[in-house]
């Protein structure tokens, strides 16, 4: 048709109008199945340890540091003949701190990789979803060692029989924090927490600890898991500030918790903010020091941290001396295929120290395996550990009815840009 005629023009615009309201919200992108990378190629006869953790994303610091600590000690063991002649290697997968990849990784580790044991998992939302898998695979006797979470589900029936915990629980940490804050006269305690099972676990711990003292939560605010440091948490700051608390306990990951501290301080609010071990105090401090340098401001005042391992500054402990020496000597890093080559390691951190201690207990148990070296034998060996000294001044004991190794909580605050043990809580007296 040489001459366009009018209805087509009108129709075209109508079609466009309809098409524009026809396009629904784009579907949320599916969580990408994590990269499947072997950290170390195992050879026959190796003890293969399976790990799924966050090596990428806003919590990458946790998976990476935990891995580095474990790798440092295993490197030392392997260089010195292994355990009874067997090398100990870690097969690690990235789950980005998301439950679904963690489940997929676990299935692969158990079924395909046929690992001896699972170890160094990171996070409550991930581990709580993996627990039913362990129960499902209970015939294959695979157990999970020393997950980097203090939540209750893996410390209680029906899952406690499949899990060995080394670190103290969030209940221990929150109980300790509440006890010390209340003793210092700070009775109005509010919680800033991650909107998932991890945050809820800490919220529950704080609430229980307060209830024991006849107190209630002064306020609460949540944030979404995966919130980056660049996000504003001003809304949460405002909600909590309105509640007028004497102190805040944060149950979160380092990126969001650091952002919360930054936004609170930027709003001129200097309330003491306490974080628990999972935050990864090294990564938290790194972010805050960085922002502080950029803006000429101190974001590290009135920060309190509860830790489940001793301070890496405490060179009086043999394990800390070993840790520092081996970290310096081996400079372990997670494979770049796993991290995307993006991660900048911390020299020392409580997280890598925890990974290091985890490996020490593992090696102690591997050395005790008698007869067959299968999963059940390892479980038996772990349960036979009785008063083992790993160099932190507290003996480790496990048993058939005792799968919790430590209950010790350590408290630190920042002085001169580093976390140091708190010796006197009276500085926060109110």
């Amino acid at each position, binding site marked *: 048709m*040489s001459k366009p*005629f009018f209805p087509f023009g009108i129709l075209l615009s109508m079609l466009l109008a309809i*098409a524009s*309201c*026809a396009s629904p919200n784009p579907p949320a992108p599916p969580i990408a199945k994590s990269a499947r990378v072997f950290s170390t190629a195992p050879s026959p006869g190796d003890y293969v340890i399976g790990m799924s953790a966050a090596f990428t994303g806003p919590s990458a610091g946790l998976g990476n540091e935990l891995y580095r600590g474990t790798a440092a000690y295993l490197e030392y063991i392997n260089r010195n003949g292994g355990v009874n002649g067997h090398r100990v290697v870690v097969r690690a997968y990235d789950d980005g701190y998301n439950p679904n990849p963690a489940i997929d990784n676990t299935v692969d580790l158990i079924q395909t990789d046929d690992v001896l044991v699972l170890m160094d998992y990171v996070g409550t939302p991930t581990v*709580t979803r993996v627990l039913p898998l362990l129960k499902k695979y209970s015939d294959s006797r695979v157990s999970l060692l020393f997950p980097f979470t203090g939540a*209750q589900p893996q410390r209680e029936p029906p899952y406690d029989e499949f899990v060995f915990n080394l670190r103290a629980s969030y209940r221990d940490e929150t109980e300790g924090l509440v006890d010390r804050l209340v003793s210092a006269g700070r009775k109005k305690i509010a919680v800033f927490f991650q909107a998932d099972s991890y945050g*809820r676990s800490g919220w*529950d711990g704080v609430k229980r600890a307060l209830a024991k003292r006849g107190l209630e939560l002064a306020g609460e605010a949540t944030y979404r898991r995966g919130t980056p440091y660049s996000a504003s948490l001003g809304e949460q700051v405002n909600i909590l500030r309105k509640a007028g608390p004497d102190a805040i306990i944060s149950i979160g990951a380092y990126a969001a918790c650091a952002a919360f501290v930054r936004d609170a301080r930027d709003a001129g609010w200097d309330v003491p903010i306490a974080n628990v071990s999972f935050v990864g105090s090294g990564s938290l401090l790194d972010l805050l020091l960085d922002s502080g340098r950029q803006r000429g401001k101190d974001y590290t005042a009135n920060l309190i941290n509860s830790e489940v391992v001793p301070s890496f500054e405490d060179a009086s402990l043999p394990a800390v001396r070993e840790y520092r020496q081996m970290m310096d000597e081996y400079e372990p890093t997670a494979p770049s295929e796993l991290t995307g080559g993006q991660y900048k390691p911390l020299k020392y951190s409580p997280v890598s120290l925890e990974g290091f201690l985890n490996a020490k207990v593992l090696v102690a148990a591997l050395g005790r395996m008698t007869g067959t070296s299968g999963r059940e034998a390892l479980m038996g060996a772990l349960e036979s550990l009785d008063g083992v000294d790993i160099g932190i001044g507290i003996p480790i004991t496990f048993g058939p009815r005792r799968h919790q190794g430590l209950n010790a909580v350590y408290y630190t605050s920042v002085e001169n840009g580093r976390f140091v043990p708190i010796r006197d809580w009276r500085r926060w007296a109110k």
Partner: protein
Amino acid sequence: MRMPKLLQKVLAGVLVLFVAVVVTTSVISGWNLDRLLREQYDSKGAALANDIAAASVETLLNRDASTLQSALDQSAEIQGVSYVFIVDDRGQIVAHTFVPSVPEAVRSLSGNRATTTIRDVHVDGLGDFADIAAPILGGEAGYVHVGMDRAIMANQIKSAIAGTSLAILVVMIALAAAGAMVVIRTVTRPILRLTDVAQSLERGDPYRPEALAGLSKQKDELGQLARVFGDMAAQVKARETRLKQQVEELRIEIDQTKKAKQVAEITESDYFKSLRQKAKEMRTVRE
């Protein structure tokens, strides 16, 4: 190819009609979809709330809140579910999926001990929800609230209707365009040809029957029209020829009469008469 004005009008009318039909269908199906989706979402939410309520009893009474939270988080991943929260027997919210905090509008929602209740809630800044409350242990242990997002529903309806309307319109436009092509081929083009021939006749060009030869063979009304037109043209031609002839004859007649009149005028004149008298006298004198 030219698009005749009449056809434009007809097609425009047809399209307006199509659009009216589509709009009407959209409104009706939108209303129906809304009702159906509401029912579906509400029953989905109710099933979920009851499931959580049944599963929470033991957890709520015996475990820490993180186990409960884990269950809620999984439920909140279900499409259409905006929030889930659990209120315990003391009216305290022991687990929820809100960020950054539980909105006042839902905090005050209560449940019914005997049955699962559904009500519409508006939360400033978050939107509209169907809040479905299921009692746990007959309300003794608390309530589960599941919030189904009305906006997702509205979007689904919108996209479904827009999709259907779009499909219908596309099909109709395709049909209309095809129809136009057919009409142009079978109806308009012969009419245009006839018009052309008539115009050439109007200009006085000679009528050439071969211009309508093909068309005249058609057995439909257009063929008939062409044949009638051809006959008419032929008759007009014949009549014209006849008229021309008659005019010619008349002209000859007129010429003869004129001549006679002129002769008469000459012969009737006094001069001619006197001349004739003189001639007569001359002939008489000679005798």
